[in-house]
């Protein structure tokens, strides 16, 4: 595991993605070259109005320029304050933290299932897979959200060239329904050579976990939990495991094997 670095980059670029979504790029980030898909950074807001750091998955990096991107949605107080930071603000970022997605083998069918703000780490995973030589068209990227407004970075995904299926609950874009429905059909057509990767709200992860377990499909889930420390010392972020133990989402996770966590 890479050692986390305490760093003070600036907010280099601030892109408003609409509907309360933002892309923030920080530089110079010493950690940029070390962050793998699935890993996260822990950000101290430059205010005392929220006490803890907030965790954000790495959405992309540019190691040469030492740039690191996160994508977030305004959810509560923390993300609201984050969204109000001016360009150029000095940040306090700890990372990389947590476990990584394991890249699929070339002969595996990679199925990525993103729900809502679970999208950024999977976009990063897809991008890295392609960089490592995985054929873009064979990356089955299922992206579900409540409605059109929650589907972001479409042109970026198009450029990547992945096989993108968009699903919204209200049908305002893409298929109507739950993202797990087309995933299920896909799994039924393809066998155990599939590798599943998923990040999103807990009910969705639970559904994906169940779908996979029933078909003995392997893969990984990225979880969220409130994280006081983010680097493993407080034991605040644990989730129960199927073997009866606890694991820290910030250290053993956020990426867990399918079947490992008692969802």
């Amino acid at each position, binding site marked *: 595991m890479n050692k986390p670095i305490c760093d003070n980059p600036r907010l280099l670029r601030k892109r408003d993605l609409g509907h309360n979504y933002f892309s923030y790029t920080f530089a110079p980030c010493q950690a940029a070259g070390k962050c793998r898909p699935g890993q996260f950074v822990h950000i101290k807001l430059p205010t005392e109005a929220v006490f*803890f750091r907030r965790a954000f998955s790495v959405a992309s990096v540019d190691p040469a320029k030492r740039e690191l991107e996160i994508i977030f949605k305004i959810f509560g107080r923390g993300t609201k304050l984050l969204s109000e930071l001016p360009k150029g603000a000095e940040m306090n970022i700890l990372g990389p933290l947590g476990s990584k997605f394991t890249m699929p083998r070339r002969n595996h069918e990679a199925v990525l299932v993103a729900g809502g703000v679970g999208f950024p780490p999977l976009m990063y995973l897809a991008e890295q897979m392609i960089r490592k030589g995985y054929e873009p068209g064979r990356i089955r990227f299922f992206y579900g959200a409540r409605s059109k407004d929650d589907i972001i970075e479409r042109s970026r995904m198009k450029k990547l060239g992945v096989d993108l299926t968009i699903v919204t609950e209200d049908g305002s874009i893409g298929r109507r329904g739950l993202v797990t429905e087309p995933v299920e059909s896909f799994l039924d057509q393809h066998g155990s050579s599939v590798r599943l990767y998923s990040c999103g709200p807990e009910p969705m992860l639970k559904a994906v976990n169940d779908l996979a377990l029933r078909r003995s499909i392997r893969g990984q889930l990225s979880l969220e939990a409130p994280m006081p420390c983010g680097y493993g010392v407080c034991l605040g972020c*644990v989730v129960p495991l199927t073997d009866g133990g606890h694991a820290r989402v910030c250290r053993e996770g956020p990426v867990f094997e399918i079947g490992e966590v008692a969802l």
Partner: protein
Amino acid sequence: MSKTLKVTLAGVEFDNPIMTASGCCGYGEELSDIFPLTRLGGLVTKSITLNPRLGHPPPRTAETASGMLNAIGLANVGVDAFIRDKIPFLAGRKTRIIVNVAGGSVDEYVEVCRRLNDVDGFDMIELNISCPNVDRGGIQFGSDPKLTEKVVREVKKVFSRPLIVKLSPSVTDITVIAGAAEAGGADVLSMINSVVGTAVDIHTRRPRLTNNKGGLTGPAIKPIALAMVAAVYEQCRLPIIGIGGIACWQDVVEFMLCGASAVQVGTALFVDPETPVKITRGLKEYLRTQKLNSLNDLVGKLEKY
């Protein structure tokens, strides 16, 4: 004489007065990824119990105004796994190691300390008689002077290195408990543990912690801790380790003026893992600008009205 941050507690010399508090630095491994543990005066382990404990189910932390609540519930690997798996790493660090011990009965405290007495690789035990997050033991001991004296006395019989007793703030008069710990044979007092508190999620109408309540820590409780350190310093001869909301070197000076000989940093490690390193840097500079030779010159030097 050259400037020094060194402090001595019960005959044990610390390179500097900054320790990391129990439950806030695990068993040291993760923190050592962030800075070399030699930068610390000392490290206090998560509370160790006789048997391994999972702790309470999540959620077991919550954010509050300038602080946090936790009800981890003494999750730990148990004393045997601790001795086998964790001590070897800790023993190799060039810093003082303090093992924090918790128990549900006098016998459990004694048994854990007896087993620890047989192993090297650490310097002191800190007795947690003040954990607000377990049903039996913990705070129950720390709020009863008789029980406090008894558990300290029994542990002293089986453990031959210096003993720190960690006090709870959730009592009517902490000086009474401090006196009982002293009577039982404590070498050092540390204070305070977290303050009993809770928070509610108004949407689900449930407590924010599965344990229904937890311990409040962080800057919010610093004034409470300072008042208690000052009160015990006036009544009691034992050296005091100040704990509660410390986040910067100025906080350490406040605690030392009130009577603390050293301090522990807990919650601040979550907000900024480099806090101890920043504090020692600040204290060195403070000695220089104040033309002080040693931090000891500050201890108890509060000029009361």
